[in-house]
């Protein structure tokens, strides 16, 4: 769950496909643009008409936003609060025909939850009857047929009603159609047209969720100018990406297709130290550990898994497009840079922080800092450095020493007392992607300084963010 901003109680997300069809009589650029604009205008009037319908997913609720928020079932009125809609939304196995029992389990009431709506069209509407006719036009021309993927998000407060939400949703939809028109016309070259596609980004408070329309098929590398403009518009620093496609906001109720857990540390309660502060990894990473991907690396793969977690972070923050490398690919990279012999590939040999640094550099083009402590006991004094790292870089840290490798996701550190705790993600876990087990048993958890082998030496690899947007 994500806090969008402290005022938001419910996020409403409406998605739907609208058919965009028109015939281009001529190839004259201006005329073509006129036809395209006219067709968008038709779609905008459709969205503002009485035949526009919003159906709440997983529920029997259907709303006509342009009919004064008339809704069915009849218990829902225009003055029903948006957050009361949750009572009508059923979890997976139940039948969506009536109200849920009033036993609502709200774990974190300060967190916004998402209601999904589908954009639909009512084809049966009372009104003036027009005779059915068939029109045939014969003309050598071009035909445009696209489905526009509409996807709007609206944040509503505690006291907002269905009627308020409808006004906001319709406005968001018409605005998105305008944005789509702009992007379509901008990207028209002769008789080719790129489909506009909305992407949502979660910007730091107080800006919240923002939707940008990008042309489908154009890679991030060709959209630098657009991103620069957006950074300026939203007053964002120009040394880290916020608007790459990989930065797209992942809605809480959407499962990840690859099955890995994301940010399991968010389920933990963080320690409170006297005058202490918590410094955490920023952004999203996936939890990689023993036995995943049908690779039995139990006993030797811990550093590889920590490296995979780090790679997943850079991929999901949009810095790299390379998918998370496999054990073999990691080993091959080390052979390629001359660090290991060819026989290394396919073996079960351990790697350490230096190798992790080398792979991050060779495969992902990243630089990393190495921190060395001669004794585990010294780690307790590295609070400031680690705190700084999480503040400025915010990347996961790989630590290797003794006979083990781990990932550090954050520190809780008190400048005055020197107390320190480490947020550890343990790659030695061999079980299933069960968040409950992982957090309960401490596979992702806060550890004290005694977690480390006090006499062994440790190397830490601190990956650095590239300064790009």
């Amino acid at each position, binding site marked *: 769950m994500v806090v969008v901003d402290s005022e938001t109680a419910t996020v409403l997300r409406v998605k739907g496909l609208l058919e965009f069809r028109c015939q281009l009589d001529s190839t004259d650029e201006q005329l073509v643009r006129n036809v395209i604009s006219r067709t968008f205008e038709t779609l905008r009037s459709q969205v503002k008409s009485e035949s526009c319908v919003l159906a709440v997913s997983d529920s029997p609720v259907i709303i006509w936003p342009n009919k004064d928020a008339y809704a069915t079932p009849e218990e829902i009125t225009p003055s029903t609060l948006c957050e009361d809609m949750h009572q009508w939304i059923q979890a997976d196995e139940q039948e969506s025909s009536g109200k849920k029992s009033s036993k609502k389990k709200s774990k974190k009431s300060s967190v916004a939850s998402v209601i999904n709506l589908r954009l639909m069209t009512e084809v049966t509407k009372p009104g003036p*009857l027009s005779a059915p006719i068939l029109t045939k036009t014969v003309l050598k021309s071009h035909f445009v047929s696209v489905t526009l993927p509409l996807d709007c998000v609206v944040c509503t407060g505690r006291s907002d009603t269905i009627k308020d939400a409808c006004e906001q949703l319709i406005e968001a939809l018409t605005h998105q159609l305008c944005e789509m028109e702009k992007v379509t016309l901008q990207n028209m070259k002769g008789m080719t047209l790129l489909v506009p596609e909305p992407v949502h980004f979660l910007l730091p408070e107080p800006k919240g969720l923002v939707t940008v329309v990008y042309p489908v098929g154009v890679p991030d590398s060709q959209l630098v100018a657009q991103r620069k403009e957006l950074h300026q518009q939203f007053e964002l620093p120009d040394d880290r990406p916020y608007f790459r496609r990989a930065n797209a906001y992942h809605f809480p109720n959407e499962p990840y297709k690859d099955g890995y857990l994301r940010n399991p540390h968010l389920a933990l309660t963080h320690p409170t130290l006297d005058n202490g502060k918590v410094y955490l990894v920023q952004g999203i990473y996936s939890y990689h550990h023993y036995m995943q991907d049908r690779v039995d690396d139990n006993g030797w793969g811990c550093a590889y898994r920590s490296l995979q977690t780090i790679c997943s972070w850079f991929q999901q923050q949009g810095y790299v497009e390379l998918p998370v490398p496999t054990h073999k690919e990691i080993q091959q990279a080390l052979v390629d840079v001359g660090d290991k012999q060819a026989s290394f590939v396919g073996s079960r040999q351990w790697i350490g922080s230096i190798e992790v640094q080398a792979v991050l550099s060779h495969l992902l083009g990243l630089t990393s800092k190495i921190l060395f402590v001669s004794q585990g006991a010294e780690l307790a004094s590295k609070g400031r450095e680690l705190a700084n790292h999480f503040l400025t870089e915010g990347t996961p840290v790989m630590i290797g020493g003794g006979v083990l490798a781990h990932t550090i996701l954050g520190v809780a550190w008190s400048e005055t007392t020197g107390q320190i705790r480490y947020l550890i993600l343990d790659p030695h876990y061999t079980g299933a992607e069960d968040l409950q087990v992982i957090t309960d048993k401490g596979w992702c958890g806060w550890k004290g300084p005694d977690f480390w082998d006090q006499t062994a030496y440790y190397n830490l690899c601190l990956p650095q963010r590239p300064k790009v947007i």
Partner: protein
Amino acid sequence: MGRGYIVQDDVEGYLSKLCEQKADPVTGLLIGQSSTQRDFVVMAIRTPQKEESAAAARNSVDKEWVTEHARQVSRMLPGGLSVVGVFIITDADAKDALTTLRQLLYAVENLISSEHLWDPADDDVTDCVTLHINPKTRKTVCRTFDIKDPKSVAKPADWKYQSGLCSSWATVSCSLNVDMLLPLPNNRTSTGNMEECLKEGLKAWAHQIESGLCLIDGKRLPEDSELTVGQRRNVRQTYTAQLLITTENKRLTDVIEQCGGSVSVTGVIHSRAYLHSNKPKARLAEKLLKRDVVSTVATRVQMMLEELLASDQESKGSCRDKQQKELFCLPHRIFCPLKVSGPLCVCDYQFSDEGLSEVTERLKEMLDIDAAEEDLDTRQEMTFEITGCDITPEPTQEKVEAPEHKKNYIGVAMATVVALLATAASMLYLNDI
């Protein structure tokens, strides 16, 4: 355990009168609604006489003629009513009669279902009925066959007459807006090509309708809930339906293509379906109404295409370079109540250049119904007033077409059908068992 057919008692009188005619054999269709528990027959319709047939030919059954009649009749039935079987009145041997009936039944049902734009549903009843009546003894033999199974054996079935059968049937209806725009392929814009494009477009549209959300009287009812029908006899039970659709197919690439033009179908049509009074479920109402929506639009488009092909519209000037825009009025739907008490109506499609007398003639020829013009309900749909249409300025090329009609409706349709379905038809008959 055989099926049980409950039949409107008027049918008994109708069949009796047919028995008294000199002709032998007399064939015809049985119209009604089949549900999982019970089957209803509301009407029987004799096969119309073929004009040119010689005396000798009248004594045999013309399978093609019976089948074509069935196809035309099925276009005149609103949702919920369909051809559920065939009958024959003959004093020929019972076994021969059954063989003939079987052949007719399969041919009729296969032809009708081949024109459907929807997929059969799991809960569709696939049993159809054959009725053999001996005109002298009035002995009635009733058998059913499973249309899905070409090797099905005849199963005995009950045939029981009842009065006031349809008096408490329910009607579900709606007015639906159609708005389709389809490209025509480059350099191939003849009526034949237009037909191909329309068929594809209609199939995609039919799929949208089929997967749409259906509300009955403003509510989304659970599928298995029962509509409150038949509780108050002789009181009209009408429900209004709403259909909400979405687009499912994503089209994000190859979005602009060259074309030779476009064809569009727009306007509002009236659709309705009838439901039997024996505890019908919401799911049935939804299914029957959606099917009527799809078939009323498809039927009209098909009829328009048949007219265009028959009157050979394409030979009119091929000015490929100039823009040519033609407007065709699709026939509009007229309802005619059945004499039996209750809400049931049949329907017909009236082209803009036809009068109501042509409609009543067709009702007599096709459905053997005596209707007066005053009985006809013409107000469910709008007709197109062809006065100063605002089509794009190309004065010499503007045309508003109302294709010409011939009196012998079934004859014309027959000729066109043969032209269009020559291969299909011959395959159909070759596959008879």
